[in-house]
């Protein structure tokens, strides 16, 4: 049975395991390095600042090596796809806009960014009519504006549009 291009694995499980284990090791090494810099020994007044994190970092490194070995020794028949191409596309189609959204909040404020984000999603993935897109996108932001700024009095990040409307 031939596989469609969408079902083809984008990454193998093995490479994902190895990649994550290596990342863990790098992080552990970083923690060990910084803790050693601060002093991870026993001073006269007790353990130094780096004492506890030093060993934490060390354990991360050791368990990362063991997980790495486990990943490397994985039998080929168990090395099934970590994620299929079609799945990865779907995941990225949410992740990338979400990352852009998170970055945009700082410039244009959370309300405008949220309306655009929801609108983009509904239009692009859901293929909704424009009036529905506008209704949900704007309605959602108005709702959250009333709840946070009005009811709870918690200011959320605002941008040029709010300044224009005098809502700051």
């Amino acid at each position: 049975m031939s596989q469609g291009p969408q079902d083809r694995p984008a990454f193998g499980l093995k490479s994902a395991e190895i990649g994550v284990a290596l990342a863990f090791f790098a992080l552990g090494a970083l923690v060990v390095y910084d803790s050693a810099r601060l002093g991870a020994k026993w001073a006269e007044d007790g353990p130094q600042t780096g004492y506890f994190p030093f060993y934490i970092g060390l354990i991360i490194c050791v368990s990362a090596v063991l997980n790495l070995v486990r990943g490397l020794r994985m039998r080929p028949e168990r090395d099934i796809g970590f994620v299929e191409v079609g799945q990865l596309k779907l995941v990225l189609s949410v992740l990338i806009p979400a990352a852009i959204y998170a970055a945009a909040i700082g410039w244009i404020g959370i309300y405008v960014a949220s309306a655009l984000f929801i609108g983009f999603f509904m239009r692009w993935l859901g293929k909704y009519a424009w009036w529905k897109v506008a209704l949900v996108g704007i309605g959602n932001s108005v709702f959250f504006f009333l709840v946070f700024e009005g009811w709870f009095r918690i200011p959320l990040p605002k941008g040029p549009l709010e300044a224009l409307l005098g809502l700051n």
Partner: protein
Amino acid sequence: MDELQSLAHGFAVALSLKNIALMFVGVVLGVIIGVLPGLGGANGVAILLPLTFGMAQLPGGTTSAIILLSCIYWGALFGGAITSILFNIPGEPWSVATTFDGYPLAQKGRAGEALAAAFTSSFVGAFVAVIVITFLSPVVAKFALEFGPPEFFSVYLLTFCAFIGMSKEPPFKTLASMMLGFALAAVGTDPVTGTLRLTFGSMHLLTGFDFLVAVIGLFGIGEILLTLEEGLAFKGTSAKLNLKVVIETWKELPKYWLTSIRSSAVGCFMGIVPGGATPASFMSYGVARRFSPDGDKFGTGMVEGVVAPETAAHAAGTSALLPMITLGVPGSPTAAVLLGGLLIWGLQPGPLLFIEQKDFVWGLIASMYLGNIAGLIVVLTCVPLFAAILRVPFSVIAPVILVICAIGAYTVHNAMFDVWMMVVFGVLGYLFKKLQYPLAPLVLAIVLGDRAESSFRQAMLMSQGEVSVFFSNTLVGSITTLALVLLAWPLVTWAVKRVRGD
């Protein structure tokens, strides 16, 4: 019977109009959170926690705040069953076992029966656990009053070793994930000397990583990404739940009294020992299948197969609060978030709470009784409404959930940096879930990291650096030994397997 007197006092605190209204609000919010993919007990409470900062400032406000948040938790526990039975999607990890028999029942057109059985047994499980909390927690708290730093550290050690010993995931992955949590907790200011560490000169890292942001990212964003892989549409059966079905089911349920008792016991035990609701539900399902006369029919749609995991999951989820309020050691991620809430409101979780904050503790315990009754009423009457939420297309609900997560992450410290970290934790959560790195120990380590480190260092100061302080008396010695046994448990099972030649 001091407990009953205190409990009566607790009811007097909890039974104000405002608190009862908050209970219903909490339960409804909780069920919605439990039903929605990407929102669950832990991150739902995490998102709503910043909203209670203001509430907790008022006199008696901390009690109202904890009532609201704990009722969200109860609601989420109930909500998980709805999606499992109607849509075969476990809304929460602890409802996975509920799908085994719940969804087949729904396919046979017996969804109402399955739902009524699930809700009722959830209620029973939670109720048993609350009774356990009522009578056991004052005893544990009294006992824990004698604890010094070595004892506290040994309890933390036990908690974390239990994760390694009892988790289904590979032990070294559990260890790696847990230690990552400790490392993240160590970032920022050293709790003992005030020195900066692991900040690498970044301003944003001065205050360290907030576990609330981590929880929102790991459980919220990560879960949405995972759900996406399954495609964009949910297909479910419809639910008809009327009074007649409920009463019919209630007539049938007493037959399963033994399963209920067994499941409650498994649940309470697993909740107090930090095993958590998820393994409890699986274990209880397995035990029920083995002991039931209809065991071989499990998986084809047996009511008993719904009763067992639901009872245990709720018993565990509820009793996870016992170590949280008595020792300051949460048994589950959601309990960890609630513990974080206590700290933010300025309460010190631990045995002193039972002396200094009687209103708070007993108000909370009384609210557990009332909240679960409120929960049962809400879910039995409003199932079709909640099921309708899942019929909202994913392309609408997913971005809205993401927006809610972003707002939640921002409001923790009013910092944009947290929103970006949330996305990073989301990717981490997705990778970890797929590669079987457990998330619960990671979250617990972020929450408890500073406290565990402080107690360790204080203990070491007391003993001049002698590790033998953790065996210096029977109490601390036995807890430490138990912890080490649990830590070595995977090794033991591995060795046994080897010897038997499997």
